[in-house]
């Protein structure tokens, strides 16, 4: 028998709210199966089983918020004896008045978190929702002017809280250094256009995928940029899980593409498309939120020229790409207009030095000059 604890889904996560259990006592689960949905201050995530087994007991019902590390279920590992009969399943229906449901949506309050309401038979009423919303907003009252009203206000604030905590910690603890390099993308983009020309729309590759692939391979050459700074030391990661910054209305998140370095361009393209889609729909998995070993932020072909990002702790590096645009470059002594991008590196000086960082950026540039090798 083992306790299944509220997982940490990020460095900034202190507690989590159980939105819904996807399993019930008696269910067999395999490692990787989704057990429950947890809401952190950032977003809702699916949490997977970490080993095969049978769900014995649900310890914390939906709607409750518990600290990271709190046992929330008991899962008997395969082979263990049955401890006791399974308790009756938890009633899943949320008792809430129609008005409260509407107001909750307007205020961005998740009614499932409110618990028992004060209405008839414990129904959640508008007043319950408004109280919950007020509680949520309280810390902001002094710090900042109230944000614009509208849908997902509270969710937005939750995510902002998390970003604020993580970024503050990053700037407080991590001695950043910054490097940049202009990279000629003409060969890569020409190659890609040819590749795409013969492909149906669903199989075409977007240029940012090339950049991701280049980053993933460049890491092989400068591995100290890939990993975590924990307990005063660098723990280099053997796997390359690329965190990809995705801008949502509520704020930026950077879920991971696992083992990006082993992927073909097509696989990477598919993984990225899937990740963006699920990020938009709030159906990311918990592991995707915690596993990134390095983050890439790409401000897109319409963004600014360069980005000098803040490292997401406990990672030790962040790679940024600005807008792809035509620039005057000197190629073989000639001044020519070339499509190019400014790649930047923000790195933790505790884990690496500028020289190694420079090699890393040059590796990216070199890889992109020979896209066919990617």
């Amino acid at each position, binding site marked *: 028998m083992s306790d299944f604890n509220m997982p940490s889904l990020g460095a900034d996560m202190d507690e989590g709210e159980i939105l819904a259990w996807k399993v019930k006592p008696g269910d067999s689960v395999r490692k990787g199966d989704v057990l429950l949905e947890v809401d952190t201050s950032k977003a809702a995530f699916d949490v997977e089983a970490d080993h095969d087994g049978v769900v014995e007991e649900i310890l914390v019902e939906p709607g409750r918020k518990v600290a990271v590390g709190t046992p929330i279920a008991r899962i008997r590992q395969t082979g263990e004896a049955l401890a006791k009969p399974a308790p009756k399943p938890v009633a899943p229906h949320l008792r809430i008045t129609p008005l409260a449901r509407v107001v909750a949506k307007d205020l961005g309050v998740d009614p499932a978190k409110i618990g028992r309401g004060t209405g008839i038979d414990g129904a959640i009423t508008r007043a319950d929702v408004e109280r919950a919303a007020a509680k949520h907003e309280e810390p902001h009252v002094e710090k900042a002017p109230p944000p614009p009203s509208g849908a997902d206000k509270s969710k937005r604030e939750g995510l902002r809280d998390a970003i604020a905590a993580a970024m503050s910690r990053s700037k407080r603890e991590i001695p950043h250094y910054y490097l940049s390099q202009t990279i000629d993308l003409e060969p890569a983009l020409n190659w890609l*256009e040819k590749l795409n020309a013969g492909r149906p729309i669903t199989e075409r590759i977007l*240029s*940012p995928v090339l950049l991701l692939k280049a980053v993933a391979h460049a890491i092989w050459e400068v591995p100290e940029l890939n990993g975590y700074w924990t307990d005063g030391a660098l723990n280099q990661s053997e796997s390359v899980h690329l965190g990809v910054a995705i801008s*949502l209305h509520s704020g930026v998140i950077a879920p991971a593409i696992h083992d990006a370095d082993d992927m073909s361009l097509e696989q990477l393209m598919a993984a*990225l498309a899937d990740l*963006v*889609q699920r990020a*938009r729909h709030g159906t990311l998995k918990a592991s995707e939120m915690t596993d990134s070993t390095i983050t890439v932020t790409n401000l*897109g072909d319409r963004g600014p020229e360069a980005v000098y990002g803040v490292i997401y702790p406990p990672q030790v590096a962040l790679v940024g790409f600005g807008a792809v645009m035509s620039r005057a470059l000197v190629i073989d002594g000639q001044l020519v207009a070339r499509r190019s991008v400014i790649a930047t590196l923000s790195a933790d000086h505790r884990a690496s030095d500028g020289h190694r960082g420079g090699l890393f950026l040059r590796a990216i540039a070199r890889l992109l000059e020979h896209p066919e090798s990617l």
Partner: protein
Amino acid sequence: MSELKDTIVGLLLKIAPEVDAAEIKPDVDLRDQLDIDSMDHLNFVIAMAKQFGLEIPEKDYPRLTTLDDCVAYVQSHRH
């Protein structure tokens, strides 16, 4: 016409569920106003291609910049 527009807006909402359909301006760059990235936009173009049975070459992507563009594009490519 407006049915077509509604269909396209529906596709957009699938790509970017946070968007408020009522706030989409028909003549403003979708990526700017909806804060979606190139991947979202590609997903949107793919969805359009599937929905309307169109083959949309890469060079046509810039012709799908605004909602009005999309409507016009579908109308001119659909028989």
